[in-house]
């Protein structure tokens, strides 16, 4: 068989590729709304809360998904309620609430001596250990979350852009934001066992900030973020086979690489962007002094 098709003869790899592309896409989509809401830290925070919940659930003899859902929804609700009251910003609320829940989980592990390999795979991810059941859950969550963002796009954008005016227009901004944080928590929970608590923030925020540097158009940012998320996840997963490396960190490296490339591209585009003065449209290196003027660099 041709060498580059070699990984595809393994079922576990095909499943891994499918999961990584699905998660890369849905995290890329959710990431755009997260960065525009100013909640970049939420992926990191909620994944820690879900980890704490998974441990508590496990110790209580429940499926880890059940514990993770209860705790991360609770964390989302508490963060929402704290930050709604304005005195405390969402990032501070995320830092406190999610770390406390994470610490509680670690505390229980240390007290009960029930540290297992499963917890380690939650921390660092193990995409190749995905079961059939996990795959079905990931596919379902991807479809439902995609539908949520598709149908509530307008309301989310208006609420995040200008919350007060959105309220006046009749949008129930409180419900929209709470629902958004629950959807986010769900995406994070299903991503946790594949990508890992410690690596998830990059998969959520990385594609979105890369896409944001390439476009000022919301639809384009969403499209590019999904594409970057899918391509970087596929590439990372595929490369991990040949590099014999862990898939989660390799995916994160590819997302970081995508960010580096887009940052350089955006810089070059900014320096050389086409503009016109003297009635002639042209392009050459120049420095922007503010939004509307620029000075030519000396030749």
């Amino acid at each position, binding site marked *: 068989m041709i060498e580059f098709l070699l990984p595809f003869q393994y079922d576990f790899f095909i499943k891994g590729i499918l999961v990584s592309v699905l998660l890369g896409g849905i995290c890329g989509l959710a990431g755009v709304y997260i960065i525009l809401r100013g909640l970049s830290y939420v992926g990191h925070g909620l994944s820690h809360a879900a980890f704490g919940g998974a441990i508590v659930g496990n110790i209580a003899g429940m499926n880890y998904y059940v514990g993770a859902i209860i705790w991360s929804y609770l964390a989302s609700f508490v963060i929402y309620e704290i930050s709604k009251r304005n005195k405390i910003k969402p990032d501070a609320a995320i830092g406190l609430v999610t770390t406390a829940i994470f610490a509680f989980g670690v505390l229980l592990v240390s007290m009960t001596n029930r540290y297992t390999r499963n917890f380690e795979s939650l921390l660092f991810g193990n995409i190749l250990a995905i079961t059939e059941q996990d795959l079905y859950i990931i596919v379902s969550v991807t479809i439902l979350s995609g539908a949520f963002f598709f149908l509530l796009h307008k309301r989310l*954008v*208006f609420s*995040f852009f200008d919350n007060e*005016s959105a309220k*006046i227009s*009749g949008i129930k901004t409180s419900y929209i934001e709470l629902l958004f944080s629950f959807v986010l928590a769900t995406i994070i929970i299903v991503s946790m066992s594949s990508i890992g608590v410690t690596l998830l923030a990059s998969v959520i925020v990385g594609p979105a900030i890369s896409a944001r540097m390439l476009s000022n158009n*919301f639809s384009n940012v969403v499209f590019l973020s999904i594409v970057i998320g899918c391509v970087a996840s596929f590439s990372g997963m595929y490369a991990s086979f040949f590099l014999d490396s862990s898939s989660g960190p390799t995916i994160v490296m590819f997302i970081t690489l995508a960010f580096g490339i887009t940052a350089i591209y955006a810089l070059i585009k900014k320096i050389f962007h086409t503009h016109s003065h003297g009635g002639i449209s042209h392009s050459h290196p120049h420095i922007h002094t503010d939004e509307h003027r620029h000075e030519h660099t000396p030749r």
Partner: protein
Amino acid sequence: MGSFEYLKITGLSYGFAYHTFVIEGVNLTIPKGRFVSIVGPSGSGKTTLLKLLCGIYEPWSGDIEYICNDCDSIFYYPSVGYVPQIETIDWNFPVSVQEVIAMGSWNYKSYLPWIDKKLKNQIKDVLKMLGLSGYEKRHIRALSGGEQQRVFLGRALIRNPDVLILDEPTTGLDYVSREKIFDILKTLNNSGITIILSTHDITHIANRSPWVICFNKYVIAEGSPQHVLKEDNLLKTYGLADYRIK
């Protein structure tokens, strides 16, 4: 369904910290079609009053009633267009002029994420009226202050409002841009829209606004600029002993 007749505010009070009133005992009646400018210093409660009128805040006490002439329901609420202070806007948000204006109609109407053809045509008409034809695809950051202000005015207008509420629409604008905004507001007012705005710009409203309210926590005086913008009222409003209208 009836049409908006007048706005009645009775004993309105509101504050942020316990027992600290930002506005207190406000009584006002604003009939349909009036062009009202509310003047007062920073921190006098102008923005709070406008947000109460829009329903963003719930009054601590008192009533805000939008009365209609032939309504069946006591729960009548007119279409209100709100233009916020543009200093509060995140200009890096990736939205175009067309999307910002379309937001004005993004409530219950549609769950599809794109802007339909009918709305695009309405936006074109609004932009033409605002002197911004051809600006649909521009990013909001790539506009001048006056143009940005007009875009947000367009977002309020796409709702076909009975009442238009503007929070400091001329702050930070040059003379020509301020004149343009007032020209547009005058045209809208002539078409029957009730306009309520807040401003620091006394000189401009003295010339352009037919009805002025001096406001500092409560209504100090109201009437035509000639009758209201007098030394004693301004002294009470601004608390400046040496203030004179030039």
